[in-house]
């Protein structure tokens, strides 16, 4: 085999495929964006034409993906260090940083303009602000500067239902702010539970997560406090226009489990957690994912079953 053929093989292996570019858009995060935006849109009192609604959700998802690509462009250096992110397209050498930047910028502009044309300027402005908030405020500024990165940065993930609502109604209202608040308050305990069992990752990467700056004991306390603050908000939403009996039952069950988990995390010390491989922390993290889907699923169920008396109280 000649040197030339060896080089050819390397080039073939390094060629980025369509899936690698798609991976830049963080498809798993996109699922959450699509689902919450869809619920925000369907919970709105104004209904959109199905094609317009589909297009709006698609452009919101593309906007979310664009911010994911910009995030990967900026964080390529720390993604190489952390075990959790090492296989992403840039650190694994499949896609170049410049390509991620170009893709992110192009899709950001495309998604905002298309959402404006498909729906209204407010939804497009909110999407533009979300991309800016996630890519610039959170990724470039907050993440490596303050342990409050997750608290403030959580706002970026909280905007999609508000954008979905705005796409349908052209306004921002109490209901859409409530959906925003639900995700905003849920984000810190969700990520701090992850930070507890992803032990050395953030430390090695020099990201000032709460576990790194304030210690693990303090992080456990923060998880409990935020979960306690989240519960009344989540349960209280049952008595608003987006709530109802289905939502109330779901909120009571899931908040009770989340609170129990947060309390268990607070009670544990590092030795106990180490001994069982962070079992409780992993369970709480997993539950927190179901928690959000269950709450937004319940809002959606309430909307769909409103004609049967299962809508808002």
């Amino acid at each position, binding site marked *: 085999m000649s040197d030339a053929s060896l080089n050819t093989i390397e080039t073939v292996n390094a*060629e980025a495929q*369509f899936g690698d*570019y798609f991976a830049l858009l963080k498809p798993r995060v996109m699922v959450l964006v699509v689902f919450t935006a869809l619920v925000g849109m369907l919970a709105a009192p104004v209904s959109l*034409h*199905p094609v317009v609604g589909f*297009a709006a959700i698609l452009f919101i998802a593309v906007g979310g993906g664009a911010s994911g690509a910009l995030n990967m462009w900026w964080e390529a250096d720390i993604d190489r260090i952390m075990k959790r992110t090492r296989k992403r397209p840039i650190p694994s050498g499949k896609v170049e940083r410049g390509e991620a930047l170009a893709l992110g910028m192009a899709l950001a502009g495309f998604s905002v303009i298309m959402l404006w044309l*498909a729906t209204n300027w407010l939804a497009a402005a909110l999407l533009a602000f979300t991309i800016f908030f996630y890519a610039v405020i959170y990724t470039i500024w907050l993440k490596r500067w303050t342990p409050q990165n997750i608290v403030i940065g959580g706002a970026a993930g909280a905007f999609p239902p508000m954008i979905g609502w705005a796409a349908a109604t052209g306004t921002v209202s109490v209901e859409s702010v409530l959906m925003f608040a639900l995700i905003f308050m849920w984000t810190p305990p969700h990520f701090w539970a992850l930070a507890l069992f992803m032990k050395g990752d953030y430390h090695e990467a020099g990201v000032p997560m709460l576990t790194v700056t304030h210690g693990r004991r303090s992080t456990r306390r923060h998880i409990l406090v935020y979960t306690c603050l989240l519960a009344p908000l989540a349960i209280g939403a049952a008595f608003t226009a987006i709530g109802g009996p289905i939502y109330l039952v779901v909120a009571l069950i899931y908040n009770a489990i989340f609170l129990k988990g947060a309390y268990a995390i607070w009670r544990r010390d590092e030795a106990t957690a180490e001994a069982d491989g962070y079992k409780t922390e992993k369970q709480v993290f997993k539950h927190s994912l179901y928690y959000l889907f269950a709450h937004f699923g319940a809002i959606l169920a309430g909307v769909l079953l409103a004609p049967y008396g299962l809508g808002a109280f």
Partner: protein
Amino acid sequence: MSLSRQHQLHTRRYSRNLGLGLVLAGFVALIFGLTVAKVTSEDFAVPTEVGGQY
């Protein structure tokens, strides 16, 4: 030398080209669907002539 149809570049980039082609075709279909949805909605009104210009 010009690229032949069987050049390995085509093979290497097959998934990228196919993916991009499908995305573009989907976009065309979406814009068509959006246009139909917009012009058939009750809110749609043909721009009226103002000052001799549309």
